[in-house]
């Protein structure tokens, strides 16, 4: 079983906190591509590097709903957008590096698929098993915290996260805003901008490590 304290408190491992903004919520569509990918490289509480990219897709179709929630502005996007292969080359250095844990909010249920589409669109095979084995989903940790479910000692950490991901209960809200309220973290009103979300996700992760350990 993974000891979360090892990552943060004892600073044994580096980790990245990553988030994506994509076109819609259809996870089976291969056209659902990330138009923003942001991540920070961390060790303990310290941020070692920051990365904020806008991969350029010619036929990007952001749904109305997603555009409203994420404040998507096509002209702003077009100004900042760069060749997706440059983004992927940088991302691979971190996400495929076994030294890094991958921290994200709803990574299992959402970002994994978006990154898979990103990899496929760039003509690369997505290393899902490797990524999953190092993944720490703060959405799952949040559910464990709210439902007072202890981290089991004899169970695989990934399987335990899947159980939490599939835990759906009326009134059980674990979005970033709710978790910031619960954990006393200042909520950035620019939420659903991947670069701002990762900061809050990191704070949620750190607080939850203390609470769950």
């Amino acid at each position, binding site marked *: 079983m993974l000891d979360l304290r090892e990552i943060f408190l004892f600073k044994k491992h580096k980790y990245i906190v990553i988030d994506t903004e994509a076109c819609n919520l259809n996870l089976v569509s291969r056209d659902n591509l990330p138009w923003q990918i942001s991540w920070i490289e961390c060790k303990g509480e310290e941020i070692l590097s920051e990365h904020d990219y806008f991969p350029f897709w010619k036929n990007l179709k952001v749904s109305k*709903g997603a555009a409203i929630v994420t404040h998507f502005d096509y002209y702003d996007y077009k100004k900042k957008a760069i060749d997706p292969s440059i983004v992927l080359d940088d991302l691979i250095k971190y996400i495929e590096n076994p030294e890094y844990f991958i921290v994200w909010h709803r990574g299992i249920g959402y970002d994994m698929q978006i990154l898979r589409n990103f990899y496929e669109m760039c003509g690369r095979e997505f290393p899902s098993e490797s990524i999953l084995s190092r993944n720490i989903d703060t959405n799952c940790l949040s559910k464990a915290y709210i439902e007072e479910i202890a981290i089991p000692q004899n169970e695989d950490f990934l399987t335990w996260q899947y159980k939490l991901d599939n835990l759906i209960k009326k009134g059980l809200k674990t979005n970033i805003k709710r978790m910031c309220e619960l954990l006393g973290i200042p909520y950035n009103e620019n939420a659903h901008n991947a670069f701002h979300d990762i900061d809050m996700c990191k704070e949620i992760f750190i607080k939850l490590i203390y609470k769950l350990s």
Partner: protein
Amino acid sequence: MNNILPIFSSHYSVGRSILTLEDPSKIKTDEGPDSIFSILKEENVNQLILLEDNMRSDIESFRYCEKNNIQLIYGVRVYVNDLSFEAKKDLRKHRLCIFARNSQGIFDLRKLFNAFSLKEDLFFTSDELKKYWTDNLKLVIPFYDSFLFYNTLTFTNMIFELDFYKDVEFFVENNHLEFDFILKNMVEKFCKNKYLISNIKSIYYKNKEDIDAYLTYKIACSRSLYGKPKTLEEPGIDNFTSNEFCIESWKEQNKC
């Protein structure tokens, strides 16, 4: 991975498949839904394994298969729940597949399924299932929604007594769902030296590009008067992340 069994479901399994059982000789246009029999013809397959959610397709499939020398293996999905009354409130039930071993098995299957479809909550208890069981039936544990699936990926702890049944078989699939490998490991661990494992591919549409048609159908079937309307951009269907439940994927995986 070799010898992956293609297991079809037809449109009679409402909400699950968009494939029909139309006779290919009667299809006059390329448009519209694909027929399972056309697919079998194209792929030169002389065996049809049909696994349905009900038994409405048995006569239609039997007639065509008999006329065209296709071996038909017919099965249905049923649900079992052995939890206490309190736990039943959440209606969590696990799925089993039951196949007919022979011609008599079809009649036994019909008898069993009639009893199942009369159940108010649409699930058997283990005892009820045993009551209708005969040696002409074969029990198969599916890859998804089985008791192993729920025990592995949810906090449910389901127990199902397998010793009563002869030659129980477990299905394993690879549909590129992120948790497939976790589940596969669990099935292999559970079955080690005890139960047979078969590699299969569930087929609900013809090609990967048919996923939008399939998703549209799923959305239409799960529509509700209440709540947020479902759309292709926000389908709201759990774990719907794979377009691999098709004959195209079966062909790719069979080549490997």
